[in-house]
């Protein structure tokens, strides 16, 4: 099963067969070199995948960062505005922060207190497994599709091959969410750990970190809930693997 699979049927139809390319694989396709057979396999996937070919174009544009002549003045204005704000923060007395750090504290997201609401180390008991099966993807669930359309929850990391045991999981905040539920599973869907956080990240407890061993792929997923306890968004499943 592809890690990119999700319950939105439109998204599902507009991607290619097999796994979509991870960021570092897209990066490879923008450059030269790399193993010829691997490149060919990626090219074959991209040819049939609107998601990856669009992603590749967006990434190419981002890396090139070449403004059109008509964009120059607005771009200069935006950069100037960022520097002005930073400058003000830097000049503030007794505030030993650089401009980008000062932004961090002004950001709406920092209002979410970075504390973990609760941490649950779950022995994958019968009850949890049952719950998990009910919400597993692949089961036609129009409710979940509606959720996907109302808000998107995207994961930041870890993703793909990692060289050190991740200390935390991080994702992009959803505006209306006050609580996030995080599942870490084995590739066969067996639950390893379930955690909760009010912030858009969660620290991995020691016992969970000890389960992250080389070459073993783990999958994680985040679900966002609003103040009434209603599910407002659900991420795709993301895989990561520790490489020795």
């Amino acid at each position, binding site marked *: 099963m592809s890690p990119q699979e999700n319950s939105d049927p*439109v*998204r*599902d*139809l*507009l*991607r290619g*067969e097999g796994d979509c390319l*991870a*960021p*570092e694989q897209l*990066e490879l396709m923008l450059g030269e070199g790399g193993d010829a057979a691997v490149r060919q396999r990626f090219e074959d996937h991209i040819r*049939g995948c*609107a*998601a990856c*070919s*669009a992603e590749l*174009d*967006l*990434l190419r*544009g*981002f*890396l090139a960062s070449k*403004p059109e002549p008509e*964009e120059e003045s*607005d*771009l200069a204005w*935006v*950069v100037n*505005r*960022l*520097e002005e*704000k930073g400058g003000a923060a830097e000049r503030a007395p007794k505030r*030993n*922060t*650089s401009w*980008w750090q000062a*932004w*961090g504290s*002004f*950001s*709406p*997201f*920092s209002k979410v207190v970075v504390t973990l609401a609760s941490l649950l180390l779950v022995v994958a008991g019968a009850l949890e497994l049952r719950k998990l099966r009910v919400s597993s993807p692949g089961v*036609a669930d129009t409710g979940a599709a509606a959720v996907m*359309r109302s*808000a*998107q929850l*995207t994961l*930041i*990391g*870890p993703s*793909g*091959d*990692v*060289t*050190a045991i991740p200390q935390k999981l*991080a994702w*992009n905040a959803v*505006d209306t969410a006050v609580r996030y539920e995080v599942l870490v599973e084995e590739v066969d869907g067996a639950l390893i750990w379930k955690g909760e956080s009010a912030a858009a*990240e969660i620290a991995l407890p020691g016992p969970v970190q000890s389960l992250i061993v080389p070459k073993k792929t783990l999958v994680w997923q985040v679900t966002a809930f609003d103040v009434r306890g209603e599910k407002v968004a659900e991420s795709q499943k993301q895989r990561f693997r520790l490489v020795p």
Partner: protein
Amino acid sequence: MQQLSDEELITQSRGSGIAAASDPYLNELFSRHQRRVSLWCLRYAGNREDAADLAQEILARVWRNLDSYQGNSKFTTWLYMVCRNHCLNHVKAKSHEPDVMKEIVDIADTRGANTEEGLAREEHVRLARRWINDALDETERKVVRLHFGDGMAVDAITRLLGLKNPSGAKAHLVSARRKLQESARRWKARYESARKQ
């Protein structure tokens, strides 16, 4: 300092023991990329005020999550993912699913006539994917995916993909819709005749 790569700056910063606030390596890293992030936001938002807000939020987010960058990809690729994901999170709920996509989803679904064909849903989705691929050209597929799949605004797609034709992404959406409708009609007709036999 300016000769160091992004990744070297991060490594130096992690090994320097300097408090992050006054870390010259991170300062260099952020100064280096603020223009890139600003241009992306400008294209996404379409106006400079919103672009400045978005860029500010993204750079703050990068700063807070920098320790989750593990060097699997280049820093710029990771930065792109953060930008893209942050911007897409700002997309508000789509008011309604476009009719043409609803029609296609229904056709790809196993419910109704299709179950009689004995095809698994997965098999059906695969056929529908191929059908969409055949019906649309490459640009149309990208535009359809970004608009209907990711909920990206039409004007943002025009700017981010650098489309130069007169009405940009909109023209591609219009032609994609027409082709998909035609194709859906043919697909349905084929099913109807298969069922009658």
